């Protein structure tokens, strides 16, 4: 029965993929995502879109689309895991946190530097906060999280700071049937 629900979700998502694919070439580009108005006005819109595209690529096919969205399946849904590494499902708490971590980690080097944090903060607040204030916010955040003194936030430090947050609920999308 769980299988049926998954199947209909895949059909729905394929419809959606197809309707976003204006060029009808079986792959989505960044412009295709930007055409969604609510995503275009999202301050982190560009970062989220970027998460769909592997390093250096400009097109994402349906498989890649589904793979990225799979991070957001609710944790209860774990009969079907498709992750190929070490058997951990894509939508585990760790992998959801990793997805969020990568929103901040601009150069994908597995740590969030002060500079990267500043850039992402600037995306979120626009012109409304001064450089000095933003700088002190970034410093405070790093200070709070950094345990090994390298002035960067690693993934394990990130996880530690957010250990009490209900990641499973906040980073999941529930289908209505």
């Amino acid at each position: 029965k769980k299988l049926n629900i998954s199947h209909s979700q895949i059909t729905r998502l394929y419809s959606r993929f197809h309707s976003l694919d204006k060029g009808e070439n079986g792959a989505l580009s960044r412009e295709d995502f930007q055409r969604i108005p609510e995503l275009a006005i999202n301050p982190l819109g560009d970062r989220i879109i970027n998460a769909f595209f592997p390093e250096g690529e400009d097109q994402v096919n349906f498989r890649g689309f589904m793979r990225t969205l799979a991070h957001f399946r609710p944790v209860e849904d774990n009969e079907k895991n498709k992750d190929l590494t070490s058997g951990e499902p894509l939508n585990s708490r760790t992998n959801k946190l990793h997805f969020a971590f990568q929103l901040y980690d601009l150069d994908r080097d597995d740590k969030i530097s002060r500079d990267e944090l500043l850039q992402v903060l600037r995306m979120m607040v626009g012109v409304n906060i001064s450089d000095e204030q933003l700088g002190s916010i970034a410093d405070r955040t790093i200070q709070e999280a950094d345990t090994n003194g390298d002035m960067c936030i690693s993934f394990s430090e990130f996880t530690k700071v957010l250990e009490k947050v209900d990641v499973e609920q906040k980073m999941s999308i529930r289908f209505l049937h």
Partner: protein
Amino acid sequence: MEGAWEIAFVFFQVWLSIVVGLIMLPAMFGVSLGFTDIYIKVLVKTLEWATLRIQRGQKEQAALPSQSANGIIEKDDGSMQEEIGELRRSHPKNLAGGDFTLCDAFYFCKKGIENIVEDQVTQRFTSEELASWNLLTRTNNNFCYISLRLTIIWGLGVFIRYCILLPLRITLAVIGLSWLVIGTILVGLLPSSNVKNWLSDLVHITCYRICARGLSATIRYHNKENRPKKGGICVANHTSPIDIVILANDGCYAMVGQVHGGLMGVLQRSIVRSCPHVWFERSEMKDRHAVAKRLKDHIADKTKLPILIFPEGTCINNTSVMMFKKGSFEIGGTIYPVAIKYDPQFGDAFWNSAKYNMVSYLLRMMTSWAIVCNVWYLPPMTRQDGEDAVQFANRVKSAIAHQGGLVDLSWDGGLKREKVKESLKEEQQKMYSSMIIGSDFNEASLSLLLSVSSPDDPSAPVKGSGGL
């Protein structure tokens, strides 16, 4: 061969007299012979039967459930403040002011992914999906083969629609439009007088009635006492060019629009001879003041017909009402709102201009089962004191959305073709910034906030970087 031509000719004559006698003449006198009603009743029964069969079939095959009208994913309706507040509650707060936490990004991330899966805007520019198949091939999404009987009925439907109804409808449409052109030119020859106006109204209504029969349109008008009066402005939600036929079946309006070439142009030039419509050249449309002035002059003259305007500016798929452009609401005058809701079961009236041109659209219309719709006349509204044009427009839009059972959106219908305004993103950023600064408000940030102008406030002078 001679014999064959004669038979064809006789056939044609019989055909024509049937059309004239049974459809045109009653249309001219506003009388209904009841054929359409019977047709619709039969259709409803058939579709109900088909739905039951499909549901039964789906249960047997454990097939895919159909889409619910409420969307495909659950969405939290909380505001940014609420959602981020909830996220932060579980995080140990640092009290040195500046309320940023790393988990804030979760809110934007989830919203973004939700919008990638399903968003409120892009779905309005394609046809509404039906909850159950209505036996038209074009609406067949994911409905698989169920039974032989259903397929036979479907095949019968194809035959009826394409071989019987389509020729009939095309004949009617051609007659209706040519009569409109000829009739209005003839009436235009008369000197201005009450008789001329009366004749003009008669010609217009008759032709629109014939065109409506040409679509097998069944229209139910509600609250006729609120019908638009002379010197007023009628506003309605826009789904297709057929809206004009629907509304003009029950009253006479002055149309507003751009001058077109081709067949449209011929129609425009002829109908303006019998009564004043407002046609703009393309260049004039850009000058908002000139447009406003012409409309103002029109409604100031109480002998002229009410203007019909569609403030959305583009066709929307009849599941929602999108932003009303404020231009029509600045002119003054009484606004008569009208809500139009089509029943998608019988035929999808939405014109997806990106996918179909006018001719293919009309052909699709004429090969649907029928066009069934409800029209509600809402009580007239005027701008109140202290209300600006945008607020007034939103008020009218809500009333129309509420009456028609449509979703009230403030997104611009122009997003069909254009990108979203940068200022909306800036609004989001401003909202989030106020959550970070919070009580740590100092003069520098205050002045920064004030210099970014609010995009919804047309009277505020644009300073700083927040340009429209």
